């Protein structure tokens, strides 16, 4: 056979495996759920949850013992701010605390009786802020609003005291240095914008691993000997099995990942700065790495339900290891080492930098290189485990064949033994 024919034959076999796998995927409702329904619905659900991005109008209670013009000005300014709403007034701190306890408000502004007296005596006036620390975002809103209002009131008092002549002089004496704050890449400080890209990328990896694992489990259970690899002339080489199966999932996930990385961010107008060429350059190695990772994992589990137990619980730790919610520089070294085993770590970082921060391919070259290395390594691992599975199923086939032959011989023997007596 010429080399051309060999290649053609190889392609033919791989295509058969591909078709067979696809049919299996479409027939198994568990796989369908994880490979089609979850990637379609979950991003929408998560985007909806985080759609409001930030919180506004956090309710607070005010304990105003000062009852002065200055204290009322402070309360009015806080109430007018975007993040805080003065929901109630309380007589004393105990009263206010019971409101926090009943979850009516999230914090307390306490203005002591001598607040205005201090200010008028040209001493520091102190306002106490009590925050419910169960929620970091409400704490930040309550505290930062109080800080901003106190600074603004302070500036007004400063200009009054300075005895300046012009507006410019007032400005200079209140703030000699003009400070500009620029929040880059996520200017509104939105929670969804920060977390969602990571969630989207993680969904791709987790559903792929779950889908492949479930499909492998089903194949094992359908098989008479509990083998992963069926006995069929097309399933005789490791490479063609691995590539055939991988092509099936790549086909499904080419569509899914386009939807996840391009369509969903546009639906909910999350930041999307990367052109499609850059995303393609990232997603190609990421998908390959994920598919081969899933295939490697799928060979390690015996029952198909066990893959759910294994993969689901790692989702949350993996999200933390990507460095989205907890800064990468603060992750201990050995955990960083563990995180290098999973494609999601590099996939999420690369996607964030390309799509949310508008980086170029050169900026994520390290991540891309790691993803290609992972894809190659997991391809090798998948080949190894599938080679093992192939040998096991061939051994089973031979045992069965030997058993059948033996049976036939025994039957023949019995026939020859019994026939003379008759």
């Amino acid at each position, binding site marked *: 056979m010429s080399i051309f024919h060999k290649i053609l034959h190889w392609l033919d076999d791989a295509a058969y495996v591909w078709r067979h796998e696809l049919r299996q995927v479409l027939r198994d409702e*568990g796989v369908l759920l994880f490979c089609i329904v*979850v990637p379609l619905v979950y991003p929408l659900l998560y985007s909806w949850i*985080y*759609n409001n991005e*930030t*919180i506004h109008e956090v309710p607070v209670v005010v304990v105003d013992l000062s009852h002065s013009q200055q204290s009322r000005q*402070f309360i009015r300014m806080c109430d007018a701010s975007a993040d805080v709403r003065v929901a109630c007034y309380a007589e004393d701190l105990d009263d206010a605390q019971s409101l926090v*306890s*009943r979850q009516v408000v999230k914090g307390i502004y306490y203005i002591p009786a001598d607040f205005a007296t201090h200010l008028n005596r*040209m001493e520091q*006036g*102190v*306002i*106490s*802020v009590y*925050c*419910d*620390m*169960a*929620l*970091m*975002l409400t704490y930040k809103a309550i*505290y930062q609003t109080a800080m901003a209002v*106190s*600074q603004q009131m302070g500036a007004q008092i*400063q200009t009054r005291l300075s005895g300046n002549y012009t507006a410019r002089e007032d*400005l200079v004496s209140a703030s*000699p*240095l003009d*400070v500009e704050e*620029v*929040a*880059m*890449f*996520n*200017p509104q*400080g939105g*929670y*969804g*914008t*920060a977390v969602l890209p990571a969630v989207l990328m993680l969904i791709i990896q987790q559903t792929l691993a779950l889908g492949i694992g479930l499909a492998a489990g*089903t194949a094992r259970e359908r098989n008479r000997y509990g083998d992963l690899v069926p006995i069929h002339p097309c399933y005789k080489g490791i490479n063609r099995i691995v590539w055939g199966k991988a092509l099936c999932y790549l086909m499904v996930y080419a569509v899914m990942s386009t939807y996840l990385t391009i369509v969903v961010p546009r639906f909910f107008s999350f930041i999307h700065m990367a052109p499609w060429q850059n995303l393609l350059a990232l997603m190609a190695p990421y998908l390959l790495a994920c598919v081969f990772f899933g295939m490697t994992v799928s060979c390690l589990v015996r029952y198909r*339900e066990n893959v*759910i*137990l294994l993969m*689901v619980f790692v989702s*949350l*730790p993996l999200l933390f290891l990507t460095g*989205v*919610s*907890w*800064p*990468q*520089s*603060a992750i*201990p070294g050995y955990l960083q080492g563990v995180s290098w085993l999973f494609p999601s770590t590099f996939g999420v970082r690369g996607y964030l*930098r390309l799509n949310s*921060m508008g980086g*170029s391919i050169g*900026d994520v070259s390290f991540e891309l290189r790691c993803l290609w290395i992972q894809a190659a390594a997991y391809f090798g691992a998948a080949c190894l485990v599938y080679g093992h599975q192939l040998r096991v199923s061939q051994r089973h086939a031979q045992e069965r064949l030997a058993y059948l032959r033996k049976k036939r011989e025994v039957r023949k023997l019995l026939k020859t033994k019994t026939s003379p007596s008759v």
Partner: protein
Amino acid sequence: MKILKMNPIYFCCMVVFPLLTMLFFTTLLDSGVPQEMPVGVVDLDNTSTSRALIRRLDGFQSSHVVARYASVAEARHAMQENEIYGFLYFPKGTTDNLLSARRPKVSYYYSNVSLAAGSMVMKDLKTISTLGSAAVGQATMRAKGFTPEQIQTFLQPVRIDLHQVANPWSNYNMYLSTVFVPGVMMLFMFLISAYSLGMELKSDRGKEWLAKADGNIIVAILGKYVPQSIVFLALIFFYEFYIYHVLQFSHLGSWGYIVLLVVLQVFASIGFGIFIFGLMPSLRMSMSICSLWGVLSFSLAGSAFPVMGMDSPIQSLTWLFPLRHYYMLYQITVFNGYPLIDAWFHLVALVGFTLLPWFVVRKIKNAMLTYVYIP
């Protein structure tokens, strides 16, 4: 029933994986607050004033000046390459303009792509810029002969006295490990309770199992879940002991509340798992639903992004998630130490989740007796 514990997957999911998760979160967040995060500087001014401010920034606990860049474009590039989280920019002539009261502009840039890192770096950069501003006023006033108290009062007439109730260090470990680890535990309990019923069906032992309990499904279920709940209770009590006693997480509520919370957590999750299996007596569907539900509950618990910030349909949806009620009960009674009556709704909800299997026991019995497992 105890023979069932021979399957290695039970051991893995009930002991090994939960322990790994506990260890993972508590070590990952061990420092409590991120420290020494890399920031950069673009100092075109390069005077003793700007250098003093940069030294001060480096001295802060959570910031570490790792690099100086020649231009803003270069610093932005470094941010895109994930080398720094933010940078401070002094334009040329800042000090000159400052001394001649021409009000120069100083900017700080930070990346909010990682929210925790962004807000920490922002806080430091903001403080430094304010200090720079105050330093001028301070020097002028000192030259004019004001007392330190007078200077302090002039620079900051209204002072905010912050009280961070129950977590004065704003320790992220106390804030995340107390919700996410129980969440993962709940996930395991959902899955294991659905899995153990499903395996009976799959390996066709259902009739035998019912026969052991003399055909009484309630006795059968109780018998099946007693050993499991004992293992989970022991595990979670160990975790609570570890975080509150060894790691010294603060809790204003008493140990009685902690015990109550743990017991409710275990029984509500197992109840929920059985209920889902009862609704869909198929191993793979019930486990898939349990896992999807469990993963969603981390977002809908509302511990990171508050429920009050979500749309109202989602707000009502959160009631269906046991972790949400667990979190509310935890933060009201254990974390803040408020009276239990203020969390009565969530207490009732968790008890309700425990009793949910009541509605489906007949269906489970029916399934065990008649259903045949189809792969």
